[in-house]
């Protein structure tokens, strides 16, 4: 079973860094919708995906790039866990 609890803080830190957000990473909820709470658009979401590829050494096929897949920290963590077997 992937350890999402270990991944989630890393994901939130990455989101804050990549989006240059002025909020502490720990203030982001696991299920916060990044689009609705932080106004993330496709450009910003792409930055998150590129950041995931760099940070976790994973890669995504183009059909895996969908808004819903990366909408919340938990969803992102699940995607990363599925790639890394974390």
């Amino acid at each position: 079973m992937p350890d999402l609890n270990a991944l989630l803080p890393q994901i939130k830190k990455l989101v804050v860094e990549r989006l240059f957000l002025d909020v502490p990473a720990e203030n982001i909820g696991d299920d916060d919708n990044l689009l609705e709470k932080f106004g993330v658009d496709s450009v910003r979401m792409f930055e998150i995906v590129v950041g995931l590829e760099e940070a976790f050494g994973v890669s995504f096929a183009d059909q895996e790039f969908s808004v819903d897949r990366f909408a919340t920290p938990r969803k992102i963590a699940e995607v990363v866990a599925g790639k890394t077997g974390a």
Partner: protein
Amino acid sequence: MPETPLYIPTPAGPLFAVLHTPDGDRPPATAALLLAPGGDEKRAAHGAMARLARTLCTAGAAALRFDCRGTGDSAGEAADVTLESMEQDATAAADFLRARSGGAPLVLVGVRLGASLALRLGPVLGAARVVAVAPILSGATWLRQERGRTALRRSMIARELAAAGAAPGTGTASARTDLPAGAEDLAGMPIGAEMIAGLGRLDLLAAPAGADAPETLIVQVSPRRTPLSEIARLGEAQRARVECLNLEPFWQPLESPDVGPLAELIRPFAAGGAS
């Protein structure tokens, strides 16, 4: 500082360019050729490239930025652009700049795909120095990510259209159907089959620098304070200095990314200083 819009004649048609020259009558200390990103990234980086040119000019450089054929105000179609045509255009632009710089040392300043070309062309053009900002190491990876970015964009538009009650497939959520055979629409920019094939072969890590490599500065643009392993390997292969800058990716269509720190990092290197 004067900025002169002009056209560079080439066998493939005129290339639009802007020549930035230092104030006064003194000859330029260096001849800085700016190589822009490719595809949709070029549009987003336009303002940043102008800012970089102006900053280099304040250090005494004559700086030239130009549109490769098939882009901007130059002749040609976007779907006909290839890596080879970009290199030919960069060579023509370098010749043009040299002829107007009184023999000043040539410095290539490239961003993204332009950085990849700068690393390849530096020795060929006899450049004294190369600055490679966020170079694309693997064309195949860049293509995959650009396809993903395009899919993400369509996904976002489809989501918004659905929220507005539009029928599936409505509007710009759909892929373009007016492209030549083998071409793709990458984030709104057509890219041809030959370019796709060329990018598939682009692998900077497979081509270490030769003995004639120019002095090179590689700039990683990322929140990371240390180079990614691939960037570190590229730095070793190119015998380059590597710097890390925590900047927003100004080649993405963001509101107003600040490239001031990048300009200040590049300026002394391009001018021939040690830092």
